[in-house]
């Protein structure tokens, strides 16, 4: 029963969803403040979610199973990632060899679910968004994985999340070294794209292709997609903190320091979002392949040298 509690209540679904909604509110509020507006109330994401649950669900002809399964698989994979990371953070001996790789895989599933869901919805704008999402996925996934292997090299080749964490607790945070700092910068650029935030919101581009893959979604499936997106807003920065900044420890005052780390990363991502225009898909591809990937490779080389 323990794992069921873990998955559903803490640190799984309900906990992640609650913090994710709070993060989404923080996003909208900060955006509003930057634009000199007042912004929505704290419970706004909850209202949106409940309202969407109460709306009619329209399913395009001939796409029944996949259309509904795509958002659910997105939600489930984000929940699993959150459960795994928090379990290791609280009890570093939990986890298994290779759970880092499982996490990296699961983190791509929300994008893939978006691709599949958009593709079966049979809408020209959705398919345009899908093709952009595929290109974006191809461009940011490579530097993301390369940069994520810098901690692995520094920790002596372990691909177990718990080992990476205990290594940081004993020998200092990875972000404190040159290679770690460079990899951290690469990862920040990648999570901006993973969250599909401006300047990399090309697949959703509200002003040109009307939310792209999500255009045909309504009612409950849309609510689930939105929820998984909000949860990603919590899980991705958490994962970065875990890998480079020694996670969040829940002992006394440390928890405040942990929350500060999270808010710093989230705030940075949001500030980049509100102060930048959208780039084209080819510019994004060039940025990630010729800008971020070489930087990540430099970080890997530095990590091998031991700096």
């Amino acid at each position: 029963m323990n794992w069921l509690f873990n998955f559903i209540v803490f640190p799984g679904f309900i906990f992640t969803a609650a913090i994710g909604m709070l993060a989404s509110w923080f996003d909208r509020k900060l955006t509003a403040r930057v634009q000199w507006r007042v912004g929505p109330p704290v419970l706004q994401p909850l209202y949106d979610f409940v309202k969407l649950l109460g709306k009619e669900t329209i399913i395009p002809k001939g796409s029944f199973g996949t259309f509904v399964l795509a958002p659910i698989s997105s939600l489930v994979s984000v929940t699993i990632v959150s459960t795994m990371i928090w379990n290791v953070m609280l009890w570093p001996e939990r986890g298994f060899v290779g759970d880092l790789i499982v996490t990296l895989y699961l983190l791509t599933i929300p994008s893939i679910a978006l691709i599949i869901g958009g593709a079966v919805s049979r809408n020209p704008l959705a398919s345009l968004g899908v093709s952009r999402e595929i290109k974006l996925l191809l461009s940011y996934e490579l530097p993301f994985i390369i940069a994520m292997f810098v901690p692995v090299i520094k920790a002596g080749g372990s691909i177990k999340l718990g080992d990476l964490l205990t290594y940081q607790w004993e020998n200092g945070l990875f972000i404190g070294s040159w290679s770690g700092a460079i990899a951290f910068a690469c990862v920040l650029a990648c999570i901006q794209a993973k969250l599909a935030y401006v300047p990399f919101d090309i697949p959703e581009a509200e002003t040109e292709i009307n939310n792209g893959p999500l255009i045909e979604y309504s009612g409950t499936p849309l609510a689930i997609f939105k929820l998984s997106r909000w949860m990603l807003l919590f899980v991705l920065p958490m994962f970065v903190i875990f890998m480079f900044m020694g996670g969040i420890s829940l002992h006394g005052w440390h928890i405040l320091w942990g929350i500060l780390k999270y808010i710093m990363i989230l705030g940075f991502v949001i500030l980049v979002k509100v102060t930048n225009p959208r780039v084209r898909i080819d510019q994004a591809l060039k940025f990630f392949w010729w800008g971020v990937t070489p930087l990540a490779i430099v970080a890997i080389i530095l990590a091998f040298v031991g700096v």
Partner: protein
Amino acid sequence: MSVKLKALKRSIWLFHFNSGSCNNCDIEIVDCLTPRYDLERFGIKLVGSIRHADVMMVTGFVSRQAAPRLKLLYEQAPKPIFVVAVGTCACSGGIFAPSYNMAGPVDKIIPVDVYIPGCPPKPEAIIMGVVKLLSKLK
């Protein structure tokens, strides 16, 4: 009041349809979202797809080209959907009423919940209209 209705009242997503307006009403609708009026305070935001919408804001006198599309969009929307006619044109045809290509006004094509007259209505009037719509919901 049920939970569903309460949530709906606090999270209205607008879809904006231009059925042949002179574009002035549309500018006024967008004006409601600017820092001065900031409708996002009440959870109101503009969405690009009719599948996400709760309220359809129709501007313009509904030309013959636009009429079938307006009807189609209304049928594509997930229920419950509410229709707001913005501007004198949408309410009655306005200065375009005698023209040869008029198929409207809006309530001839689809049922309308709230009328907001004005040429163009001020943002305050539009907000007033939306508030009236919200207080009508039960």
